[in-house]
C-alpha cells in the first residue's frame, strides 16, 4: 500500500512537471466538442439528441490518445528496467500508474464535461448521469488502454496498434456510457446502467494490473 501511494505520488508529480500530458487530452476533448455544433447544426434539438454520443466518443478518444505515452518514457529512459529488477510488485506499480493517469485524464474530463454538455444543450436532468457515467466508465478505459500500451511499449511505432488492440474492448463501455446519459436525459432510472459500468470497472480493476505487469515483462524481456 505504501508503495502504491509512492508510485501514485511520483506519477502525479511527473505529470505536473510535464503539463502537456494533462492539457493535451483536455484540449482534444474541448476542441472536438466545440466543432460539432459548427459542423452538424447549431439547433438545440439536434444537438441535445446527439450530445451523449459525442461527449462519450470524445472522452474515449481523448483517453486513447494519451495511452501511447503511458509507459513509453519509462521504457526509453530505463526506469521500467529498474522497476523490473526491483523486488517490488510490478502489478502494484502498474496500478499506481493507471490511477494517476486516470486522475490526470478521465477524472478531469468528467469534471469538464458538464460545461461542454451545456454547450450541446443537454438537458440539466442528464448532468448527474453524464458525470457519473464518465467517473465510473473512464477508469475502465484507462485500465484496458494500459494493457495495450504495455504490449506495444517495445515497438517503435505502437500508436496505431494500441487503437486496434484496445478499441474492441472499449465498445461495451462506450455503449453503456452513452446509454446512461441518454436514459438520464429522458428522466429514466440510470442506476442499472451505472451498475453495469461499475461491474466492468471492478472486473478490470482486479485483473488488468496483472495483465499489464505480464505484458510489460514480455515487452522488456524480448
Amino acid at each position, binding site marked *: 500500500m505504501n508503495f502504491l501511494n509512492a508510485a501514485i505520488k511520483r506519477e502525479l508529480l511527473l505529470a505536473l512537471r510535464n503539463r502537456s500530458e494533462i492539457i493535451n487530452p483536455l484540449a482534444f476533448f474541448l476542441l472536438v466538442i466545440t466543432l460539432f455544433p459548427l459542423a452538424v447544426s447549431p439547433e438545440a434539438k439536434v444537438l441535445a439528441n446527439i450530445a451523449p454520443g459525442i461527449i462519450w466518443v470524445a472522452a474515449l478518444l481523448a483517453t486513447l490518445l494519451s495511452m501511447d505515452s503511458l509507459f513509453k518514457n519509462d521504457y526509453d529512459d*530505463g*526506469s521500467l528496467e529498474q522497476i523490473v529488477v526491483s523486488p517490488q510488485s510490478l502489478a502494484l506499480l502498474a496500478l499506481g500508474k493507471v490511477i494517476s493517469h486516470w486522475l490526470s485524464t478521465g477524472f478531469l474530463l468528467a469534471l469538464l464535461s458538464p460545461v461542454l454538455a451545456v454547450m450541446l444543450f443537454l438537458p440539466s436532468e442528464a448532468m448527474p448521469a453524464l458525470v457519473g457515467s464518465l467517473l465510473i466508465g473512464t477508469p475502465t478505459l484507462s485500465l484496458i488502454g494500459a494493457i495495450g500500451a504495455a504490449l506495444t511499449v517495445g515497438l517503435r511505432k505502437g500508436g496505431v496498434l494500441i487503437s486496434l488492440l484496445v478499441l474492441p474492448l472499449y465498445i461495451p463501455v462506450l455503449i453503456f456510457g452513452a446509454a446512461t446519459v441518454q436514459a438520464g436525459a429522458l428522466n429514466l432510472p440510470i442506476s442499472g446502467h451505472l451498475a453495469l459500468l461499475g461491474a466492468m470497472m471492478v472486473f478490470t480493476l482486479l485483473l488488468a494490473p496483472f495483465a499489464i505487469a505480464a505484458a510489460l515483462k514480455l515487452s522488456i524481456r524480448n
Partner: protein
Amino acid sequence: MLTVTNLTSERDDRILFANLNFSLHAGDLLQIEGQNGSGKTTLLRILCGLSSHFSGKIYWQNQDVSQQLPNFLQALLYVGHHAGIKAALTAEENLRWMQRLHPLLNRCTITEALNQVGLYGYEDVPCYALSAGQQRRVSLARLYLSSHPLWILDEPFTAIDKKGVLEKEALIVKHVQQGGMCILTTHHDFDLPKQTIRRINLDQLAHTITSVDTTPSYLVSV
C-alpha cells in the same frame, strides 16, 4: 553464490555465447570483455532477468533464480545502459524513488551519496538541467547508497571524468573486499593485481564455439 551453468544465448540466428559456466563467490570481481556487439549487455541482462533469450540455468544461493526471483532481486543492484533517471525530477527525488524500489539502498543518506559523487548543491536541480556526466553520477550515487551483495554494472563509467572513474573504481574494489560481488562490463583496465579480478572474454569464446563445442574450463580463467 551466483552460479551459471550451460548458459547459451542466440540472437537473430547468431550464437553470442554457448555453454558458459562460471560461479561467483563473495569477494569476486568479474569483468566481461568483448568488442561491440559481442553480447556483453545481453549477458548482463540475462543475469538480471531482463532477457529471456537464453537457455541454461542461473542459481543464486543454490536456488534456481527462475523459481526464486524475488530473493534474487532483493540482493541485486543493476546499473544499466540507460541511467533510469527521470529528467523532470531532481537528483534527490530520483534517488528517493530508487530507495522505494530497492529497500537495500540504505547505506547512507541521499545527501551524503550526492556529496560523494560531487553533486553537492545540485540536489534541487531538475535532471534535465544537468550534463550527461552529471546525470550518470546521479545514477551511480546508488553505488554509495547500496548494501546489496551483488552489483551488476553495464559500462558504468560512460561519460564520467577521470577522477570520477578512479573514485568509482575504488568503491567497487572496496565493495568486493568487504565480501560483495560485482560483475561489470567496461573497456577500462582496472589497476588491480591479477588475483582479485577475473575476466571472461566473449570474443575468445565466440572463436572456441566455432572450433570446439564445449570448453567450459577455458572460459573461467582465474
